[in-house]
């Protein structure tokens, strides 16, 4: 089973169509952004915009933010988490504490810069100390983190 999320409406519509084009039956797509807690998230933060443009567009619009722990049904075994999400990778992971603690998944997180990779590793070691996540290299600008202690 694949649990996917995409906050922007156009990309979500396209991903849904891509799923249909390929007859993918085991894909659950959610039109949300994954975060640390459930709340409304300003759409303006999903793209690089000139703040002056935002003033001209009128009222601020929002997209729903959800925890991955609520998106993925309890009892599912998650072996890999792959995150490249508008610089929201770590908040998304902190909303998946149950999944990470229970499943100790391989983590593939967009982090092209060394500074970001170090930040992710320090967060993982602080929030999931028992799993002893290790930095295992970079692939296509994605940092790979492997748990030494599997659940």
């Amino acid at each position, binding site marked *: 089973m694949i649990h996917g999320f995409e906050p922007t409406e156009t990309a979500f519509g396209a991903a849904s169509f891509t799923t249909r084009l390929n007859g993918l039956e085991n*894909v659950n797509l959610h039109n949300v952004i994954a975060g640390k807690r459930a709340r409304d998230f300003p759409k303006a933060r999903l793209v690089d915009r000139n703040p002056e443009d935002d003033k001209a567009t009128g009222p601020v619009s929002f997209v729903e933010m959800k925890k991955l722990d609520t998106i993925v049904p309890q009892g599912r075994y998650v072996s890999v988490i792959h995150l490249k999400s508008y610089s929201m990778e770590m908040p998304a992971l902190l909303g998946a504490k149950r999944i990470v603690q229970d499943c100790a998944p391989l983590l593939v997180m967009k982090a092209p810069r060394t500074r970001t990779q170090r930040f992710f590793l320090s967060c993982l070691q602080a929030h999931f100390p028992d799993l002893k996540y290790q930095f295992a290299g970079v692939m296509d600008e994605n940092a790979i983190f492997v748990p030494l202690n599997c659940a």
Partner: protein
Amino acid sequence: MALEQLDSTAAPEDTDSIQAPDIGGPSVIPLDGGETFEYTLASNSFGHYCVPVDLADTKEAVSVTAAAVPELSTVELICRKMGKGDLITGSTGFGAFLPAFH
């Protein structure tokens, strides 16, 4: 296939009168809010993709439009490590990785 069928599908000699379909031009998908977006279709060895015109210059879109597989090394690693477990992936964008992950 019968010979008659082959004959019937053969290209006609006079092609001037035939209206060629628009191949590769953008089509339109309606969204829930009443808005629409234009897209084109692309394919690579894993499947087919709906590529929004607005996202055509993203790395993933450029890749699948050229029939290539974006981030192939990462895709192969994830597929190998998934085993029989679930995968969480996001943001999915237009779904450039979904057919490969399936």
